[in-house]
């Protein structure tokens, strides 16, 4: 038997280049490459795993089934970087194999030893199926639960079957028949199951892409389009135009390349809203009274996408007021409590006919309501010509 060369000393390189693993296991294979893949996942030497498969295949028979099953299971998957080979893990395989062999020997002599079967099977299958066990302690807990449940179910099944017959030989036949049946169904359904999973993945990716596109559109509308409008309105003032263009370039750069975006994410809701108010105040030369009651904990984790969407929607409402209300003063009031974020943006300006805002005026529909709606929030605009405007934005926490 040949020990896979470099299985332990190239471990670091493996971690950095996961693509290499697939090639390696393809090169280092005798039949379907299952043993080498399994050895990488278990942290046992490939030789030990091969011997175990061979012995179990010859003596028990299910070694062959397990080999083929694993070949199907692992087919086309990216291999995680192999675990380092350790003596204890090798020993573990040896002991498990030996136990299985002993059990087979005693199978017809002493019934209770048969109970080891399901235990070994379930443990083996689950350890192989779940390559991230070491990484995530919560998954380890759920695995313990699954092992216990699986073992209990299998023992219960065996006992039920036993209760119906005195003849161990017929039980054995029934067991094999059941196994073959389940295996057959599995093989028939496998391609379909795989397709269902792939389709679900594609749908999710599409949805995420669509949401990202909406976010980008909203952002561009917020910043670039607003500034362009501003520049057009003040085209007669070259200095101001240049300043606006410069400022917008800096902002867009920051947003595109994420150079300096982090501070926004680590501040509290109050600080973020106050900053937005100050920004708009500078840009549109209006007075914005910003009152915030309550706040989020500033634990360094920053605001989630929901609160950030509220801030974005509030910004949109404030900018709208600054641009269209034709009044020097805008009131912003926000309340943060255990259940919700609530923001009011109010002006005593000219107001407008809500019904007259067509769908293509991106500002009202998408940038205020659309932003918070996506996170389960709501926005209500109360206005009429001559009576000012108040936008109420609410998002449950």
């Amino acid at each position, binding site marked *: 038997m040949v020990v896979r060369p470099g299985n332990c000393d190239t471990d670091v390189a493996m971690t950095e280049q996961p693509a290499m693993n697939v090639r390696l296991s393809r090169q280092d294979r005798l039949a379907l490459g299952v043993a080498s893949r399994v050895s990488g996942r278990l942290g046992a030497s490939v030789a030990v795993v091969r011997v175990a498969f061979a012995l179990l295949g010859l003596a028990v028979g299910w070694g062959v089934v397990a080999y083929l099953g694993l070949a199907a299971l692992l087919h086309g998957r990216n291999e995680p970087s192999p675990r380092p080979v350790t003596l204890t893990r090798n020993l573990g395989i040896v002991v498990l194999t030996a136990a299985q062999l002993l059990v087979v020997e005693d199978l017809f002599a002493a019934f209770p030893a048969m109970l080891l079967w399901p235990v070994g099977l379930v443990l083996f299958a689950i350890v192989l199926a779940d390559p991230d066990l070491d990484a995530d302690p919560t998954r380890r807990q759920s695995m313990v639960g699954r092992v216990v449940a699986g073992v209990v179910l299998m023992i219960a099944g065996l006992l039920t079957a036993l209760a119906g017959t005195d003849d161990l030989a017929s039980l054995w036949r029934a067991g094999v028949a059941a196994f073959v049946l389940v295996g057959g169904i599995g093989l028939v359904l496998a391609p379909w199951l795989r397709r269902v999973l792939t389709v679900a993945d594609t749908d999710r990716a599409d949805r995420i892409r669509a949401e990202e596109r909406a976010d980008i559109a909203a952002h561009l509308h917020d910043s670039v389009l607003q500034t362009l409008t501003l520049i057009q309105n003040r085209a007669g003032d070259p200095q101001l135009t240049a300043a606006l263009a410069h400022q917008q370039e800096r902002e867009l750069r920051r947003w595109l390349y994420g150079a300096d975006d982090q501070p926004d994410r680590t501040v509290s809701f109050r600080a973020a809203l106050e900053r937005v108010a100050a920004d708009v105040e500078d840009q549109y030369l209006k007075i914005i009274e910003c*009152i*915030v*009651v309550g706040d989020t904990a500033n634990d360094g984790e920053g605001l989630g996408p929901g609160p950030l969407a509220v801030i974005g929607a509030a910004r949109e409402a404030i900018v709208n007021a600054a641009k269209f209300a034709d009044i020097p003063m805008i009131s912003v009031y926000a309340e943060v409590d255990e259940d919700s974020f609530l923001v009011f943006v109010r002006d005593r300006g000219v107001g407008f006919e809500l019904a007259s805002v067509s769908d293509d005026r991106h500002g009202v529909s998408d940038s205020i309501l659309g932003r918070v709606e996506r996170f389960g929030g709501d926005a209500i605009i109360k206005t009429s010509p001559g009576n000012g405007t108040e936008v109420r934005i609410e998002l449950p926490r």
Partner: protein
Amino acid sequence: MSDQLETIRVLVVDDHALFRQGVIAGLGETKGSAHVVIVGEADDVASGIAAIQQHDPDVVLLDVHLTSGSGGEIIEAVSLTNPNVRFLALSVSDAPEDVFGVVRAGARGYVTKRIDSPELIESIAAVAQGHAVFSPRLAGFVLDAFKSVAAVVPPENDEADAELDRLSPREREVMQFLARGYAYKEIAAELHISARTVESHASAVLRKLHLSSRHELAHWAAKRRIV
């Protein structure tokens, strides 16, 4: 026309001479709902006390933060000699401990220096009549303070005390509208009650601010800055 308007005698205490001149000029030019006459000005605690005792004005426009101390000291100093003087706090400082200090010392209201002249005249007139004047900022502070107080007041607290430590639902509503930038008249229209009733809710809140003895409320402002 101006003869029929009530004349309100006002004293301005602020350590920024430029700002005092700005306010006085603004009040002089503006025709508002009341006729405001400036009877004097002062720039620190001592001269402020002296000027109040000399002129006994109707309303004192008081900066919360003077170089020699706080506006609250002036209010306390003249509370016995000139009990009828009413104070309107006026400040650029949005630090809640400054604002709360002056309001709890007895001011009838608080407005920021960004206020425009017609609105300032209206506020002065309201204070002169003994009404409460809440800027959105002060209403926000009140909501914040009573919210955190309510969280620490145990329910078995005896009735009379507890009453002072929390806002009634209606008072809360009025404070919220004020924080949103609504005037009394606008709130009255929204709630379908009279402007007088709105004002009485606001005055009730102001009384709670003055009287509530809760340790938590008194120190809320100081804590607020740390948080």
